[in-house]
């Protein structure tokens, strides 16, 4: 089957393309941008005038909750929600039940994702068995099963020597390691950013140093081991400063932030709404400004949803007894467009942080529009708005943005030339 998308504003940050043009797709691939090839006939025409056509979004962290937590979400429900957010490729973290530390789990996830067909799924394997930080997982078996990177989530390694060896082993095979740098001891028992809001509410604090101390250690270990490293879900201004310094001295590390960290601050906790309970926590306004500046400069290459859907019961308790996480992948594009609306980023830069940046950080074949590449696209209307929650596909309704009017609306998401979502 073949498809021509006519009259869209085609933006491809990787090549600097930004003009009204046509896209021609055949057998799941882009065959031309601009004029159709001589022998090309489209079996389907899509009038995209007034729409932006961009590389499909690449989300580095979407918890699919399957296997193990299907009351919170399933691979089918959450990839469908992701498609609604403009996502065509996503990485899922290893915190499933059983933990994603064997190739069987990776294969199960990939099978079900293919069956659902809403988005391309790239699993992140556990770096250690059971995420316990003691024994290495079988990284090569996991790689061969389809894991594109390895991480240990927020579970830190019990001892630095073991972590160091894990990194050296990963470096041997040029594997990417994803860090969630948060010191276990400094964050123990903490529920919120250690600042005036947490003090006022009587919530135990997680100091900035919980991130920076772990991050400084991790950067030094990365430097020593030479492992390919990505730092995920940074929350502090001092933290991104450390990344910037490491990059300045030539360390090829990449980083992402959760989109909600660029929008919310710890002040949202006033009133004790468990919707704002996330780990690592929402930080101060100064931290948010630091993160936004780092995204603008490109110190942080990727913005991810860090989507964590929950069942109702998980959030139905006093703040400290609730499970952390926000369900927001299906708002990824409109929520991210608030950064353009606020004047922080221009549209091509935003699209780079949502496509090319994360794809390159994980070496995924995604995030760019070029002839011969998979036709993974998002088509959206910048001129209209989305009322968050009018339609809701994720199983997790734990989203503090529900009811807000957000800029832009996703019209079509295409994976390998097939429409995976129509808005």
């Amino acid at each position, binding site marked *: 089957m073949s498809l021509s998308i006519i009259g869209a504003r085609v933006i491809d940050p990787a090549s600097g393309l930004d003009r009204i043009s046509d896209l021609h797709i055949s057998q799941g691939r882009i065959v031309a941008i601009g004029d159709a090839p001589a022998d090309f006939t489209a079996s389907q025409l899509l009038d995209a005038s007034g729409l932006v056509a961009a590389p499909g979004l690449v989300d580095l962290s979407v918890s699919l909750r399957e296997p193990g937590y299907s009351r919170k979400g399933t691979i089918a429900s959450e990839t469908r929600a992701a498609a609604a957010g403009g996502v065509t490729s996503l990485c899922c973290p290893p915190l499933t039940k059983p933990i994603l530390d064997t190739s069987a789990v990776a294969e199960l996830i990939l099978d079900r994702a293919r069956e659902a067909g809403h988005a391309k799924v790239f699993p992140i394997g556990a770096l250690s068995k059971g995420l316990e930080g003691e024994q290495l997982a079988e990284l090569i078996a996991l790689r061969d099963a389809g894991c594109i990177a390895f991480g240990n989530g927020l579970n830190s390694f019990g001892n630095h020597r073991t972590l160091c060896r894990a990194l050296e082993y990963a470096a041997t095979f040029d594997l990417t390691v994803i860090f969630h740098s948060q010191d276990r001891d400094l964050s123990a028992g903490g529920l919120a950013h*250690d*600042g*005036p809001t*947490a*003090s*006022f*509410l*009587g*919530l*135990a*604090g997680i100091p900035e140093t919980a991130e920076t101390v772990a991050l400084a250690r991790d950067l030094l270990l990365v430097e020593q081991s030479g492992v390919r490293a990505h730092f995920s879900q940074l929350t502090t201004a001092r933290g991104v400063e450390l990344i910037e310094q490491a990059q300045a001295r030539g360390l090829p590390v990449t980083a992402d932030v959760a989109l909600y960290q660029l*929008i*919310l601050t710890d002040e*949202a906790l*006033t*009133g*004790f*709404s*468990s*919707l*704002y309970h996330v780990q690592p926590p929402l930080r101060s306004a100064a931290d948010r400004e630091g993160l936004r500046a780092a995204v603008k400069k490109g110190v942080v290459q990727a913005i991810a949803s860090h989507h964590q859907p929950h069942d109702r*019961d998980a959030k*139905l*308790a*006093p*703040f*400290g*007894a*609730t499970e952390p996480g926000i369900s927001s992948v299906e708002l990824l594009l409109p929520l991210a467009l*608030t950064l353009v609306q606020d004047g922080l980023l221009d549209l091509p830069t935003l699209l780079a942080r949502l496509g090319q940046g994360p794809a390159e950080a994980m070496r995924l074949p995604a995030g760019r529009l070029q002839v011969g590449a998979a036709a993974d696209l998002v088509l959206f209307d910048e001129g209209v708005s989305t009322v968050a929650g009018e339609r809701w596909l994720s199983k997790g309704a734990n989203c*503090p*943005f*529900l*009811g*807000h009017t957000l800029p832009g609306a996703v019209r079509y998401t295409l994976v390998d030339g097939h429409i995976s979502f129509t808005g």
Partner: protein
Amino acid sequence: MTPIDAKRPLQLNDQGQLRHFLSLDGLSRELLTEVLDTADSFLEVGARAVKKVPLLRGKTVCNVFFENSTRTRTTFELAAQRLSADVITLNVSTSSTSKGETLFDTLRNLEAMAADMFVVRHADSGAAHFIAEHVSPEVAIINGGDGRHAHPTQGMLDMLTIRRHKGGFENLSVAIVGDILHSRVARSNMIALKTLGCPDIRVIGPKTLLPIGVEQYGVKVFTDLEQGLKDVDVVIMLRLQRERMTGGLLPSEGEFYRLYGLTTARLAGAKPDAIVMHPGPINRGVEIESAVADGPHSVILNQVTYGIAVRMAVLSMAMSGQTAQRQFEQESVQ
């Protein structure tokens, strides 16, 4: 982006009267004064031979304590009984299932018993807010202490104690001493003192026991007890939990007493007519010397008596706020 569910006056009805009593944050000086005035009038009831008034006759007050308590629970029971309410007390174990499930399920069960008012104590900060948001709106929720967050009836009984012994708040220096970080009493007291116009509020403790940004309450911070106590009118001592010794917050009880224990000699630096308060139970020789606890400056036992009157005031005001709200809603329907 401002959260849609940003802070709203959950504990007030449409006319600005109390319908729950969750925290002193956001309550006006007038309202706090009304609580104190009402409590003053109930003190007379306590002094009478027949100690009952019929304000809550036919109403059911349910004390739900997820955390151990003797003093607070007993004084709430007495307060409800003196208002002629039916009183049930439940000590709910938190160890059996996950706290959240227990709490939510317990609430549903109590709702089914048609209780009019819940007095709740819980180890999680924000528990009372959670309950007020999820229980049927006709039930009044009184916070009997939630985590480190708030203990508003203790705060108000402390204010009543100060007002009865010092006449008011306008010219006072008040020092709060000890473990401010973990104390819901300190948080409620700081808010109440500020709202009632106390010009000089001091907190005294080592940095490990002071919350970040404590200055936001409008207080002066002292790490030296003698400097902090200089010429104060009121000293509020806080209880030091034994578990603070583990985890490096303090080296020992002995060293804490050496630095922050209230002794006769140290109290001499305060005003000659200074009063000494403590929410109880006291640790003699840890935060306070026996001679001070039992001495002429101490009003610690008066606090307990005032506690009953304050709780009667809060229970009756919240019930009347609920009733007024229901009448208002019925009228607006008609």
